[in-house]
């Protein structure tokens, strides 16, 4: 164990040097659009991403899923492009593309040979400003989105369980709704719902363009000004806070689904990271909670593995811990586990809580703390291997209102967290009153049963 300390410090000093080589530059265009550029000249490729600070948390009841449907419809045309033509053009440029929607933001990206940057910028700026499509395209694409919900959620008991858990843990926060939307909201969605949401939120001051790869900063700024800069400025709509009221007592749900294994998830309400400056109390706690999650479950053989999944009388087949840390809405610290054969969800639940209680009582060792920090520092080097991942990280920091150097500062802040702080948050946030527990109760599978009927009112 003596080896750990010198190696740990060696790694910190070396890795700090490796990062200095790649500066990130951020601009604001005159219409309010943010531009973030990260040159990386290793290969003649680039990634171009458009981020919009709008996600499912900006929806209202009755049209859940609309942010994600907008994302799908962005591939369906502009006054100059027929449905599907966007993808054909990107493919002809040698590009790969896709898009994603989360609770907090929506993103679109193309990976391209670097000399094609202007072409995709022109295409992306066009659909950002002028997305339009016939109603008939909407009808077909909505069916695709419902198939996506069936694939990712309806046939996955644990995905359904998490949907129910979010809906129970949050009352006022829009985080209570699934990103893909409730099925009946999808059934009832209209073209007008989608066009209205797009017009409302897709404004330059609510968007950022991130470009990483073999590019020249001045050239990217010139192109962005040319294509995005000419889009008229509009005010970003006001956002209602919809703050989650304080939880005052344990919430517990049972969820039945056809499965073999039970499963339990415990979600504790915890502070998220609001500021990267040291000394901001709640943000310090958020960082310490992330270190706690890593000490519990940051590598195989960490505390939860040892205590729950190994040895005589082990209670679980798997066990995990995760801290939310970053997000536009309220954050959760989640513990989860799959009971071992012959053990119950309740046994796993209490074993998980006992591991947090043990940290609260006894603290963590310096060796554990250094181990999880070493892994973060090393991962800062490994992440340089993918320009797409770097661009994705820059975009997500922007969406949370953080500066482009947030990644580096975050690691610095995590490195400064002490064993004392970890012990203190373990004692502070894991009582019953802020907790929601969800248990999956497996039901027998009847393979011979007739398939389900289609949802009434489903489109064709």
């Amino acid at each position: 164990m003596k080896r750990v300390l010198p190696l740990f410090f060696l790694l910190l000093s070396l890795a700090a040097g490796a990062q200095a080589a790649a500066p990130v530059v951020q601009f604001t265009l005159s219409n309010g659009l943010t531009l973030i550029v990260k040159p990386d000249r290793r290969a003649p490729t680039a990634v171009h991403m458009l981020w919009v600070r709008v996600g499912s948390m900006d929806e209202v009841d009755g049209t859940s899923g609309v942010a994600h449907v907008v994302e799908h419809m962005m591939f369906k045309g502009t006054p100059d492009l027929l449905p599907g033509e966007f993808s054909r053009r990107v493919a002809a440029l040698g590009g790969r593309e896709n898009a994603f929607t989360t609770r907090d933001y929506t993103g679109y990206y193309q990976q391209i040979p670097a000399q094609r940057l202007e072409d995709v910028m022109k295409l992306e700026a066009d659909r950002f400003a002028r997305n339009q499509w016939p109603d008939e395209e909407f009808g077909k694409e909505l069916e695709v989105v419902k198939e996506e919900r069936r694939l990712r959620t309806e046939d996955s008991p644990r995905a359904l369980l998490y949907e129910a858990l979010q809906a129970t843990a949050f009352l006022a926060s829009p985080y209570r709704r699934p990103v893909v939307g409730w099925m009946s909201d999808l059934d009832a969605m209209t073209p007008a719902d989608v066009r209205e949401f797009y017009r409302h939120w897709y404004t330059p001051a609510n968007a950022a363009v991130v470009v990483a790869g073999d590019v020249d900063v001045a050239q990217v700024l010139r192109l962005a000004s040319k294509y995005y800069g000419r889009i008229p400025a509009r005010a970003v709509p006001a956002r209602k806070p919809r703050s989650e009221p304080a939880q005052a007592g344990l919430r517990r749900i049972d969820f039945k689904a056809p499965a073999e294994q039970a499963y339990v998830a415990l979600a504790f309400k915890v502070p998220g990271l609001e500021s990267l400056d040291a000394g901001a109390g709640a943000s310090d706690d958020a960082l310490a909670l992330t270190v706690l999650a890593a000490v519990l479950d940051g590598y195989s053989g960490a505390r939860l593995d040892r205590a729950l999944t190994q040895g005589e009388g082990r209670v679980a087949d798997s066990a995990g811990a995760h801290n939310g840390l970053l997000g536009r809405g309220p954050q959760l610290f989640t513990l989860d586990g799959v009971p071992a054969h012959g053990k119950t969800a309740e046994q796993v639940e209490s074993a998980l809580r006992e591991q947090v209680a043990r940290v609260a009582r006894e603290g963590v060792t310096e060796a554990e703390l250094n181990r999880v920090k070493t892994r973060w520092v090393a991962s800062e080097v490994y992440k340089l291997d993918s320009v797409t991942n770097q661009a994705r990280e820059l975009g997500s920091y922007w969406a949370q209102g953080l500066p482009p150097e947030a990644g580096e500062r975050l690691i610095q802040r995590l490195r400064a967290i002490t064993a004392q702080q970890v012990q203190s948050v373990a004692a502070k946030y894991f009582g019953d009153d802020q907790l929601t527990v969800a248990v999956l109760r497996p039901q027998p599978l009847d393979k011979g049963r007739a398939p389900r009927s289609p949802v009434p009112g489903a489109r064709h």
Partner: protein
Amino acid sequence: MIAIKKLAACALLIGAWAGFYSESALAGIPIQHWTLANGAQVYLVESQAIPMVDVQIDFDAGARRDPPDKAGLASVTAGMSAKGLRASGAEPALDENELSEAWADLGASFGASASSDRLSFALRSLSYPDLLARAVQLAARQLGEPAFPEAVWARERERIKASLREVNTRPATAASRAFASAVYGDHPYGLEMSEATLARIAVADMQAYYSGLIAPCRAKLSLVGAVTRQQADALAATLLSRLPQGSCASLPAVAEVRPLAAAIERRIAFDSAQAHVFIGQPGYRRADPDFFPLTVGNYILGGGGFVSRLSTEVREKRGLSYSVYSYFAPGLHAGAFTVGLQTRPDQAAQAVQVAREVLAKFVAEGPSEAELQAAKDNLIGGFALRIDSNRKLLDNVANIAWNELPLSYLDSWTNQVEKVTVADVKAAFARKLQPGKMVTVVVGGQP
């Protein structure tokens, strides 16, 4: 037009080399290859930009060598090789937790996994000399002296059994198992681990499997990262230094996949929100000369993201499925050609019909000139995206090493694509695919 496109592709390639090999813009992706004294083959691409190293070591010990009554042996042997080290000389044994802590403390990772053909070890470490030397020493020990502890296997077997039961409740599992069994018959590519085969696997089986197949002379090492050839040579030798020399006699041949004699239909009732559909047949071996026409053709049929024929007909025009695709899986044997989609149960019959029509028409008529050109624009124009990170380069180098492709393979890749004609694609698909004799599996469809 074509001349200009070629020129553009050449310019692009020179750019790609510059990133990884700035000394010579003419040398292509510089893959260095040599043989160690112990017989191991080494392939290296030096990439100095990031202080990290990736190593992959491949052995002919994949699932195709599983005994049929112990299906899953390669996979569990790979997993168990990380569960602790034997004591050796002055070095004490390490249990599973001490071993994973040692890797975490190095900021590095090392582990094994099995595919149909290969058992592969992967090392990722920072390249700072002190750290890298320690990581390589630890990897060498793990490769040469895994403990395969009985008690850990008893536990892992229970965990795997429970997770097998869980995944067997999912419609996607039922569909892929029925498809593999119908396409491959009794060929090892179609074997699946079951509770019964799992129960028969003992630690002694893993040890015998490992000592019979994991030997330095059978190793193919691929390295990408911030090391010189001299460093890579020493690193490779050290990695294999704790493996016994072992036997280097030829391994027994594995039978080829047999073609299907007739169409097979499997309709399996399942209470699920979606029907899962697979259509396909045995495809081709990686050594097949039709590789490029089939690669280009499949991009057009069902490989090319949102713009393929299957995606256009099934998803874009009819809204029947979120995901629809086709792919070949060429290996040492004829891996399956697979068309896959999922749809609402009452739409399964329609989706199957559309997919079959698209497939039959493509095999009968081949692509249009315009489709072929669009495919080439994407594949050639986007070639640099296949090699623009150390991780992607490693996949490519390991592919060259495993399949004994020429070292110039990546340099000639765009030319090989450019040469493909409409007639080549049509002829290659007609040779490989028989739409009248395919397997169709529908799990959870409404009759």
